[in-house]
């Protein structure tokens, strides 16, 4: 035998083995790593942690439930069971007999039942035989039929037996049950008492980890039915832009935020707030008795949360205000709205960083970023709440930081002036309206369309003031009026700030001065010079009194200094120090220095004579009143303002700037020649025109020669969707604000917008730019709060697509109301009135509540539409509250505007828009009864019933506080028929501060109305009334008494009586003969579509501007940027 030769190989087997082994191990390792990488997810840890928290909370609840269990009741029930068992034992013999009886009858019943069934089956068979024998005509047919009849009879008898046996059996059963009944009752009761505890125990079972749990969630096996899984909600009508295509949102936030829609995991602060609210409702009897226990349990739970030494942290917290957001019964349930539609962020991601969480401030950012391993944050980090965060710069829609949460409201609520329960967002859009952002920056939303220009018309400026004043004003408006809304264009930080080199600073000052002089020259050159009649002599003291009482201070502020709340020292006032409504008109301080008597006199008498779009209404002042007010206002001087030195315009600067514009259309030499031919005055006017174009003054003011131009600012309609890289952050990360505060610029859009709005030229810091390239947005001196609100709105203006069905406030009733609300906001009704439940800025200035302008909350249900329509157009048609000093102004509404307001009030008060009850005739019997009730309740002690002239009632003697009630003869034409009884029954609920007493107080227990006449009708003092009333009730005393106790009937009679004494006609609104408004508001011109590229933030325009004989090509304007 030959020894085996080694087989030759090309490769060394040993080495191959080694390589194979290593590569196998590597493959195994890779597979393991793949599995692990896929399996180990952060969100699983969060879900695990949540299970633990749930367990803990449930244990707490269990302990509390056990404690609150009524131990005595349980013990009593146990005793009951035991006692009955003892009784049974004592009478055991009887019980056993009864039981035996039952058993035997059960047996008999079974047997009888069986017999019956078998017989029935046999009968069916026999029936077949009988019938088939007949059909087949068999010879044994008769016999079969006989058999059939016999069996039928037998079956009937068996049935009787069965029923009899059943009866006996039931009786026996009842006997036994009687013994057992008490035990059964006790057991049922105990089960009921233990229900809560049983429920909690069941819940604990579901969250306690069992061995099943580990198997289901093991790696590789967790595709079957895992307990830890991603939780998502698909929103098919709210879209997110996925690579330029709108796709439905898929929100997976709940995967980590497990308790977001579950009550029981609130923060302590939220728990405190909720407890206070619910406790208040419980105490006030506003909770349905059926739900009372549930509410009390919840309150106890909230107390436990507050007493817990630890606090639940995010992401395991319940969403705050669950009744408004996220809760299933709220206005924004989770399943319909998800999370990202409000908060933005990456919807489909389940990683912390990728989801677009934005830290609220730098401190939070540092904690989030900390992490042991850079790419592998895990439980070792999570426990310290270091999420290993890295900002996801590729996410186009990061979340809104905490202070801008409300930005998410705009995409659905953008068409509403007022968002119910959304005070923040309402205030934010209102701030934007008052500050006037929409004038320069076009926003295509309905909310910011058709609004008036924020600044006054400058076509008549020469009639009002002097160039000296205007120059100083434009240089720095806040030196004249600290609360003004006019922003500062000149001498801002990018012109003369600390980061500008000294030499450049001097040059900039010269250039700015030149521009200011030029603008003023232009305005005064183009101004009209109408003559206005001077007033007679006025009494300034009386004028002061008028200003303070007639209602001027609802829209105007009359002081520049205010006592600081914290330090108690006097300081300059800011816009924020006063309610928004009082910033509508300008601050009176210094008006005497600015203008002259003739101007003021004619303005306060008839503002619209100056320009038809004047926001100020007419207070119907007599000539003497106007003269007195003029005299007073003239005393408000600010001479130190005019003492400020003003530098003259440097001719060289003017020349250079003008040339800079001219050389866009002509050669250098031609430009020089042209300038040489123009005298300085003309140069200034030309430069002024170009400067107004450059700075965009015409966006807020009506200026001759600039009608019909587009607003100058960037269009903001989709600013919130603009990509981060398109914002110019400049070179700064932090800066010192003009107020001295140090601000940081974080590299995200909210921070950019906030700082831009706070200090618009800050992004020019540290940069070198030629003069005309520098940033031009003026400084509005917004406070931090104002800036935050404006930023909120801007961030919310996105191009995210929402299905129309989801948009809020699009039902016809709300649209009507919102149109009216827009008018209310534009005409500043809330300066004097409470509308929609808030407002009345003038309220803090009137000490006696009897002299406040009325609260209009019930107006919709209260006033007849025809009356309201006439009254709004001409308040002199009826003077219903002659004791008031404040006057309802004449706004000169167009019919369309008056209609919109009337429809708004009707929609608001849920009244019918047009009613026809004026001519309802009350039955005479009702009128007579009503008169008696009227006398019994002594209404006449406050309400006069003698006819008066509606337009000119006698001035009441207010020393007698009694005369501060409306005359009832004016009710029929003003109030709605069905509203009057409701008002009489519950005035305090409609208007909490009213003087009208509740004559029919509510019964606290039943909620019904009590009538004082129920008792009174039988007293001797009322005997006369009783005898007068009896005939109307068929002399039935019982019926009379019942009616006297019925508040609804009594108020109906009162209304009928008031109706009978009321007048039925008032004068219609006098037509307005003053300057007619050809166009309701000069509309802001339509915007051209914004360019899609990021290069030009302002839209390209091709409009031509023709000014006198200088034609300017629009392309040249681009060079003016």
């Amino acid at each position: 035998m030959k020894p085996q030769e080694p087989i030759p190989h090309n490769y060394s087997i040993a080495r191959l083995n080694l390589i194979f082994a290593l590569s196998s191990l590597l493959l195994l390792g890779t597979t393991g790593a793949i599995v692990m990488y896929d399996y180990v997810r952060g969100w699983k840890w969060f879900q695990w942690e949540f299970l633990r928290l749930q367990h803990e909370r449930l244990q707490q609840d269990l302990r509390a439930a056990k404690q609150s269990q009524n131990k005595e009741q349980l013990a009593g029930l146990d005793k009951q069971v035991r006692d009955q068992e003892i009784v049974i034992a004592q009478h055991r013999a009887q019980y056993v007999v009864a039981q035996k009886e039952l058993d035997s009858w059960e047996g008999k019943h079974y047997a009888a039942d069986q017999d019956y069934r078998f017989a029935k089956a046999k009968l069916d068979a026999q029936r077949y035989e009988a019938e088939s024998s007949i059909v087949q005509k068999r010879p044994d047919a008769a016999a079969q039929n006989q058999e059939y009849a016999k069996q039928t009879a037998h079956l009937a008898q068996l049935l009787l037996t069965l029923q009899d046996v059943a009866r006996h059996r039931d009786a026996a059963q009842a006997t036994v049950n009687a013994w057992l009944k008490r035990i059964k009752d006790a057991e049922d009761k105990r089960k009921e008492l233990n229900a809560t505890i049983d429920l909690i125990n069941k819940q604990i079972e579901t969250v306690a980890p069992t061995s099943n749990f580990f198997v289901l969630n093991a790696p590789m096996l967790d595709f079957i039915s895992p307990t830890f899984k991603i939780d998502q909600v698909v929103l098919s009508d709210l879209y997110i832009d996925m690579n330029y295509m709108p796709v439905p949102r898929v929100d997976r936030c709940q995967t980590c935020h497990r308790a977001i829609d579950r009550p029981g995991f609130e923060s302590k602060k939220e728990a405190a707030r909720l407890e206070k609210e619910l406790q208040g409702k419980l105490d006030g009897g506003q909770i349905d008795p059926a739900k009372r226990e549930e509410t009390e349990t919840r309150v106890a739970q909230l107390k436990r949360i507050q007493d817990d030494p630890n606090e639940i942290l995010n992401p395991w917290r319940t969403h705050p205000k669950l009744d408004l957001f996220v809760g299933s019964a709220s206005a924004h349930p989770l399943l319909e709205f998800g999370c990202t539609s409000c908060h933005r962020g990456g919807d489909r991601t389940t990683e912390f960083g990728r989801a677009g969480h934005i830290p609220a401030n730098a401190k939070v950012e540092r904690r989030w970023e900390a992490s042991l391993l850079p790419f592998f944050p895990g439980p070792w980090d999570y426990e310290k709440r270091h999420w290993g965060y890295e900002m996801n710069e590729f996410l186009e829609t990061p979340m809104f930081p905490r202070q801008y949460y409300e930005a998410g409201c705009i995409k659905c609520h953008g068409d509403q002036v007022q968002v119910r329960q959304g005070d923040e967002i309402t205030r934010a859009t209102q701030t934007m309206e008052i500050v006037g952002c929409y004038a320069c920056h076009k926003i295509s939303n309905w909310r910011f369309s058709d609004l008036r220009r924020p600044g006054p018309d400058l076509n008549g400026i020469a009639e009002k003031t002097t160039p000296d004043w205007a120059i100083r004003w434009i240089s720095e408006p806040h030196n004249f009026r600290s609360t003004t809304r006019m922003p500062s264009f000149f001498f801002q930080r990018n012109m003369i700030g600390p980061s500008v080199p000294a030499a450049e600073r001097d040059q900039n000052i010269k250039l700015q001065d030149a521009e200011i002089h030029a603008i003023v020259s232009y305005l005064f050159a183009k101004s009209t010079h109408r003559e206005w009649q001077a007033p007679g002599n006025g009494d300034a003291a009386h004028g002061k009194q008028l200003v303070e009482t007639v209602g001027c201070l609802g829209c105007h502020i009359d002081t520049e200094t205010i006592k600081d709340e914290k330090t108690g020292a006097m300081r300059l006032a800011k816009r924020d120090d006063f309610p928004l409504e009082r910033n509508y008109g300008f601050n009176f301080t210094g008006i005497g220095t600015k203008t002259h008597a003739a101007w003021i006199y004619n303005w306060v008498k008839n503002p619209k004579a100056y320009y038809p779009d004047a926001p100020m209404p007419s207070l119907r002042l007599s000539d003497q009143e106007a003269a007195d007010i003029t005299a007073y206002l003239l005393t408000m001087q600010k001479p130190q303002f005019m003492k400020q030195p003003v530098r003259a315009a440097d001719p060289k600067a003017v020349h250079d700037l003008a040339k800079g514009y001219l050389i866009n259309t002509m050669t250098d030499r031609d430009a020089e020649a042209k300038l040489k031919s123009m005298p300085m005055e003309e140069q200034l006017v030309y430069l002024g025109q170009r400067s107004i174009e450059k700075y965009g003054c015409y966006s807020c003011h009506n200026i001759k020669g600039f009608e019909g131009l587009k607003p100058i600012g960037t269009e903001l309609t989709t600013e919130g969707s603009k990509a981060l890289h398109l914002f110019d952050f400049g070179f700064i990360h932090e800066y010192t604000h003009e107020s001295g505060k140090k601000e940081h610029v974080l590299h995200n859009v909210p921070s950019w917008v906030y700082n831009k709005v706070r200090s618009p030229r800050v992004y020019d810091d540290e940069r070198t730019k030629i003069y005309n390239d520098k940033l031009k947005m003026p400084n509005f001196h917004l406070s931090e709060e104002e800036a935050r609100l404006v930023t909120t709105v801007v961030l919310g203006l996105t191009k995210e697509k929402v299905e129309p069905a989801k948009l809020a406030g699009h039902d016809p009733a709300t649209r009507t109301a919102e149109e009216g609300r827009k008018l209310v906001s534009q005409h500043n009704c809330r300066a004097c009135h409470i509308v929609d439940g808030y407002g009345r800025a003038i309220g803090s200035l009137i000490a006696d509540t009897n002299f406040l302008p009325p609260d209009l909350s019930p107006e919709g249900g209260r006033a007849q539409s025809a009356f309201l329509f006439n009254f709004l157009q001409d308040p002199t048609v009826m003077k219903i509250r002659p004791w008031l000093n404040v006057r309802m102004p004449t706004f000169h509404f167009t019919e369309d505007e008056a209609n919109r307001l009337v429809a708004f009030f009707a929609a608001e008060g849920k009244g019918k828009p047009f009613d026809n009850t004026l001519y309802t005739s009350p039955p005479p019997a009702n009128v007579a009864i009503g008169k008696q009730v009227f006398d019994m309740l002594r209404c006449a002690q406050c309400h006069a019933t003698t006819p008066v002239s509606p337009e000119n009632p006698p001035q009441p003697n207010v020393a007698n506080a009694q005369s501060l009630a409306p005359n009832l003869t004016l009710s029929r034409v003003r109030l709605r028929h069905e509203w009057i009884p409701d008002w009489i029954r519950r005035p305090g609920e409609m208007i909490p501060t009213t003087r009208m007493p509740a004559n029919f107080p509510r019964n606290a227990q039943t909620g019904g109305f009590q009538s004082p006449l129920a008792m009174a009708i039988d007293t001797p003092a009322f005997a006369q009334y009783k005898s007068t009333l009896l005939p109307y009730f068929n002399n039935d005393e019982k019926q009379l008494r019942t009616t006297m106790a019925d508040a609804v009937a009594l108020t109906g009679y009162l209304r009928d009586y008031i109706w009978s004494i009321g007048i039925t006609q008032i004068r219609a609104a006098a037509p307005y003969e003053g300057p007619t408004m050809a166009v309701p508001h000069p509309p802001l011109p339509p915007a051209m579509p914004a360019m899609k590229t990021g290069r030009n933030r302002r839209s390209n325009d091709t409009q031509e501007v023709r000014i006198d004989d200088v034609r300017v090509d629009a392309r040249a304007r681009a060079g003016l940027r």
Partner: protein
Amino acid sequence: MMFALTLVLALGCGKGKEASNNEEEGEDDQAGSTAAASNTAGTAAPAATPAAAPVSADAATIAGTVKFEGAAPKMGALQMAADPYCQSQHPNGADATDEEVIVGPAGELANVIVYIKNAPNGPPVTTPAVIDQKGCKYHPHVQVVQVNQPIEIKNSDATLHNIHAMPTVNSQFNEGQPVQGMTSTKKFDKVEMTPFRIKCDVHGWMKSFMAVLPHPYWGVSQMNGTFTIANLPPGQYTIVAWHEKYGQQEQNITVGAKEQKQVAFTFKG
């Protein structure tokens, strides 16, 4: 594997909760949404005072006087011409003077409410407090009731009165009383230490003040300027005196067992 490791670590240390301290991320600082609406000073209920003890054997009494320093302002006559009935109740203007400041001949100031600020809660009171509208004036002019004590409001006049109470912490009410002799019963369920106004809208000169306390340790100075607070358990207290025109004054006192403490207040005009 890693997950098991995760579990082990997580089981041991639960970090879903943490001792609540400087939680800047979790702070819900939405402006205004959670602001409490308490808007008067000094009306918040005292923090968890223990349930009151009944009259103890060593209860002390505080007796005192309230004086007025300076020239007493002259009080004008009430103008009742608007209602002939009211005028008829005060022939020749008798007893129809403004009750805002009542100073006795020796400088005694009446109608000053004196109460203990931080005393323990008292047992519930069921005897009603009475406020009577007679001769178009309120009797008494100032009053203190206890929380949930029934208040009987009586109209002894043959004219329409309405009782319009304007508390800031409790709920307001405004009820008409057209029938002579009728009474309405109300109560206040929250502590309100700063006295609030009660007025009649029909007769503007009528006014009265009321405070709601959780205990019975209060007194109102009489015409001779004296007041008494009885059955007070010994301890350290803050005692407050309030007058409708001259505001509020406080003193810290210590009351010993069975002591007859003398306290004096002086208001300057």
